[in-house]
């Protein structure tokens, strides 16, 4: 194996700019997708635990469909197919006037996929921690909706902060899919620099360390939340 090491490529103005820009896009897409995933996941998770049979069925359908189509295929559906099957005016707006169309599409696609996974966790949390508290909450005189909103839901959500950590990490990894539709995030930029310089070791090491650092930050943040208000805090609380 003969390979000319040259770590200085990482510090050349152009390439360094590309790589840091890629890192920034990875962080932006990850955070935005995670916001979508949490919102969708909590709403679908609530519907999945609702007393109405049709709400439960619809939520179950959403989870089954979005979890069983590969995320990359979903991304292509949103990006290539959606503008063709909606009314012409809206399709044209999607193609022409939507700001940052690739990034926005990626956030929607990744967020809706991850949302289905989050919904399963939310349902499990409500079922395991929230639902058993409902009789006690009702006995205090709260109406059913109040008992759910004030007791079962918040406690169910606090219990799942731990399991949500790995969903958050999965969302970060999914952000790399956006390169297929042209978002220049971290993986795309490292590939880009490799194509220009042939210094694959150096740039892919940069990307690898980038993902490891983001992963550590996510784990640390979720651990902090868990200790403050999550399942770890609930377990420590005096009975």
């Amino acid at each position: 194996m003969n390979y000319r090491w040259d770590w200085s490529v990482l510090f050349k103005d152009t390439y360094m700019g590309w790589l840091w820009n890629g890192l920034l896009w990875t962080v932006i897409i990850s955070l935005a997708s995670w916001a979508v995933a949490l919102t969708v996941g909590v709403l679908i998770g609530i519907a999945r635990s609702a007393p109405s049979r049709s709400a439960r069925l619809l939520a179950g359908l959403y989870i089954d469909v979005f979890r069983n189509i590969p995320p990359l295929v979903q991304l292509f559906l949103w990006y290539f197919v959606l503008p063709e099957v909606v009314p012409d005016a809206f399709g044209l707006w999607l193609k022409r006037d939507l700001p940052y169309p690739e990034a926005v599409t990626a956030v929607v696609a990744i967020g809706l996929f991850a949302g289905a996974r989050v919904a399963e966790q939310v349902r499990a949390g409500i079922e395991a921690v929230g639902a058993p508290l409902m009789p006690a909450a009702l006995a205090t005189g709260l109406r059913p909706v109040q008992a759910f909103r004030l007791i079962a839901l918040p406690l169910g959500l606090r219990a799942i902060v731990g399991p949500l950590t790995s969903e958050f990490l999965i969302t970060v990894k999914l952000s790399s899919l956006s390169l297929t539709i042209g978002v220049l995030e971290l993986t795309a930029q490292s590939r880009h620099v490799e194509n220009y310089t042939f210094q694959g070791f150096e740039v892919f090491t940069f990307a690898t360390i980038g993902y490891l650092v983001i992963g550590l930050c996510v784990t640390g943040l979720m651990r902090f939340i868990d200790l403050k208000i999550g399942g770890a805090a609930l377990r420590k609380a005096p009975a």
Partner: protein
Amino acid sequence: MSDFDWGVIARSSGFLADGMALSALLVLVATVGGLILGFGLALMRLSSHRLLSVPASAYVTVMRTLPLVLVLFWFYFLVPLAIGRPVGSLASALLAFVLFEAAFYCEIVRAGISNVRNGQSDAGLATGLRRTQVLRLIILPQALRAMMPLVLNQIVIVFQDTSLVYVVSLHDFLTAASVVASRDGRATEMYTLVAVVYLVICLSTTKAAEFYRKGLPS
């Protein structure tokens, strides 16, 4: 909005079937190779020697933090360099899949083995069985049964993951469909077909795994 032409699917069915065959090959190699390597990693992680357990857990943690796309690029770049001559992207993709999925299979095997209660291996040792015999005769049969639904779930994930070889231009099912989609300008038909096919295969496997898990003694 143009008219739909579903005939494009029939006309390209041979090409699509070749793509599906490649997807199946990737799933098979990634699962068999990943399980074997994952099994070794799991035994290393459970070992009391830190020299074995620390590198294994580091490997698993790193692999689980990286996006598969980046791992595919790593091997696409590394494998020809290591061999010293260009090889097709299939060889590097297969290697990337085995090494990547091994980290996930490792966690499944580890969970399966740790679920068998400690007392059982002590009892096995007390009857005079050797460590390897305890593992083979007492722990593994129970661990394997508990692992089955998780392995099925992971196979579904691997099958979904195979679509990512798109980034190294291997013609798996999705990539084959995307080639037809851009050649004939039939994105709607082709991607809808791909979505439906994946949905049917993955959903039925997921449901089978759930069904199997419900039948297991807990």
